[in-house]
């Protein structure tokens, strides 16, 4: 059967069942590693936030890239400002930039 499975190049139900069994086994092993005397209480599963109430799944937990790199972009704002302006979101503009860059590269390569 294994040889048949190896030869199968497309989706096969037996492959799916095998994957399910392996994943189930891994999950069961991790479950058995847990402390059997665990007792559910009011706050036990909450994340530790210095004793404060967990904000749940709200956006208050989300830290974006701008929260980390604001100093970087601010220090190089003379460089980033024209770049942000050039990103219009219009595909035609991006194609113009692409064609212009290719043209410059071809001209340079012709004379080098």
């Amino acid at each position, binding site marked *: 059967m294994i040889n048949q499975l190896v030869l199968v190049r497309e989706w096969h139900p037996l492959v799916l069942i095998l994957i399910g069994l392996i994943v189930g086994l891994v999950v069961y092993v991790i479950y058995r590693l847990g402390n059997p005397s*665990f007792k559910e209480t009011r*706050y*036990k599963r*909450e994340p*530790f936030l*210095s*004793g404060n109430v967990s904000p749940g799944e709200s956006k208050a937990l989300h830290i974006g890239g701008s929260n980390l790199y604001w100093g970087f972009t601010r220090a190089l704002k003379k460089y980033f400002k024209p770049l942000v302006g050039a990103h219009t979101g219009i595909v035609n503009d991006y194609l113009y930039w692409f064609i212009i860059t290719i043209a410059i590269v071809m001209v340079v390569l012709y004379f080098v």
Partner: protein
Amino acid sequence: MKLSKTFDKSLWVFHVNSGSCNACDIEIVSTVTPRYDVERFGIELVGTPRHADVLLFTGPVIKKTKERVLRIYEQTPDPKVVMVIGNCAGTTGVYYDSYAIEGPIDTLLPDDAHLIYVTGCPVRPENIINGVKEAWLYLEKLRGDQG
């Protein structure tokens, strides 16, 4: 209650200020200074109750910290020991009639919580180290009882 084998090596301690004047907190910090250096024995102050075996509570519990104290207590994995550091944590001390006081720590925690009282105002570092030793003995005894 199942005791982890890691108790053979070290006890990790998490410190909670439930309304202290900071005197006991300073004495706790002095236990990890070179003079006392409890880290020699594997006793370490950790940054989250998820890693802790022992909870140190300093100061009386005030109304603003009551929920936080209970939350941190429950978030600490079992088995655990609570060390009540200083007279205020044990009896509310000089703040006994303050409008902001919820009560001493032992009136808030569940009945099955194992408490070790370390008295003093503020406590001496030697006394805190002795309290951690008592916590260690209790947890070792717990494992012995389980065979």
